């Protein structure tokens, strides 16, 4: 009896792994197809602009407010820790590097995944459930080119912009708390920061990260939406999957990219 149950368990595990790999392959083919058929999204750019509005502009509030608060907390916590080593003047360095290298791309990515990613998945999933996708197919319009690709590119373009805004807002928040509230020296805050933050190594790498995260989140969001079961339950499960998978992907990619970028490959 126990061996049967064990066997059943392994069979199910094997099934999950094979179906997981199959899903990945399917998702990869989906991405390739979408990239090949992105001509419409780029030629009729107003479609993509509309999606940049819905993913990017409508995420502005949460990104800016979160960025401000994260920066303020960094300023507060950072000060109290640095104070112990008499290095409170390095607060600017701490806030800037944390944000630009890590928190900006990662937290903005997570917020983007939950706000915009889930919205994209729900929208595409619902279009599928209400047969709008089939209707488009029957009208000889490729739904992947017309509906999916603009949303993908809208997300890819919005993400780096939002991450930069998050970092900038965060630094401002750190400045507000550190300099204005606590009293760290204004000049030291900015000058040490400028000396320590390198454009090529820190800022550009941060932008590259946010770009990679944007691709990952947008890909997952459109795929899950397109692949959702055409029922209410199917759409809701797909939305959850988008947020969970995107978040995990962001964190995993963050580790890989950080290892490659900031330790010169010596960590691996």
């Amino acid at each position, binding site marked *: 009896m126990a061996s049967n149950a064990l066997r059943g368990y392994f069979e199910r595990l094997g099934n999950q792994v094979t179906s997981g790999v199959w899903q990945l392959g399917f998702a990869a083919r989906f991405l390739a197809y979408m990239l090949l058929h992105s001509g419409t999204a780029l030629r009729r750019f107003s479609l993509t602009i509309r999606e940049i509005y819905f993913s990017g502009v409508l995420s502005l509030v949460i990104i800016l407010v979160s960025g401000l608060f994260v920066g303020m907390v960094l300023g507060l916590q950072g000060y109290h820790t640095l104070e112990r080593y008499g290095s409170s003047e390095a607060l600017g360095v701490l806030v800037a590097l944390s944000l630009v290298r890590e928190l900006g791309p990662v937290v903005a990515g997570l917020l983007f995944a939950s706000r915009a990613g889930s919205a994209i998945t729900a929208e595409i999933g619902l279009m599928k459930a209400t047969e709008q996708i089939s209707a488009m197919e029957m009208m000889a319009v490729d739904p992947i080119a017309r509906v999916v690709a603009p949303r993908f590119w809208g997300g890819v373009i919005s993400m780096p912009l939002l991450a930069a805004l998050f970092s900038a807002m965060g630094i401002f928040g750190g400045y507000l708390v550190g300099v204005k509230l606590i009293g760290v020296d204004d000049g030291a805050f900015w000058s040490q920061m400028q000396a320590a933050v390198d*454009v090529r190594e820190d800022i550009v790498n941060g932008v590259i990260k946010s770009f990679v995260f944007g691709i990952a989140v947008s890909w997952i969001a459109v795929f899950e939406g397109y692949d959702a079961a055409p029922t209410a339950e199917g759409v809701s499960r797909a939305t959850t999957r988008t947020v969970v998978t995107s978040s995990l992907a962001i964190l995993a990619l963050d580790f890989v990219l950080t290892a490659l970028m900031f330790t010169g490959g010596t960590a691996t």
Partner: protein
Amino acid sequence: MNRTTIDLWVGILVAAGLGALLFLALKVGNLASFSAAQTYEVKANFANIGGLKVRAAVKSAGVVVGRVSEIRFDTETYEAVVTMSLNAAYRFPRDTVAKILTSGLLGEQYIGLEAGGDTKMLKNGDRLKLTQSAVVLENLISQFLFNKAAEGKDSAK
């Protein structure tokens, strides 16, 4: 939601995003200082470069005058060959000394240039003749202990 409102807001987002990037690059990073300057290259040999890294600063009198562009190992002399890119606005005499210094007690290492008195200036591709290697902490400690032991022996005599 009509088209023009959407276009306006997307334009605002893109402008704000690029503005944030510019802010980060200029006010937060060090783009303003060193991007478009003309540079010339100067080499120096060191017995030990310690923790010196590529893109470390080259300073003279505390002012950043260049960056370390390349670090190589010479298999004939078994020394480190450091190539520096110096800002063309600053010319140094040929007997300038290059020292590897540490900023603060445990900070990052950089190259400090002390100008000599030669009338002839360094040209692109020249090699500095006088260098001082990095201070390695272990050597410093063992030297200190050795001195202390010698003192102890002297006073015991």
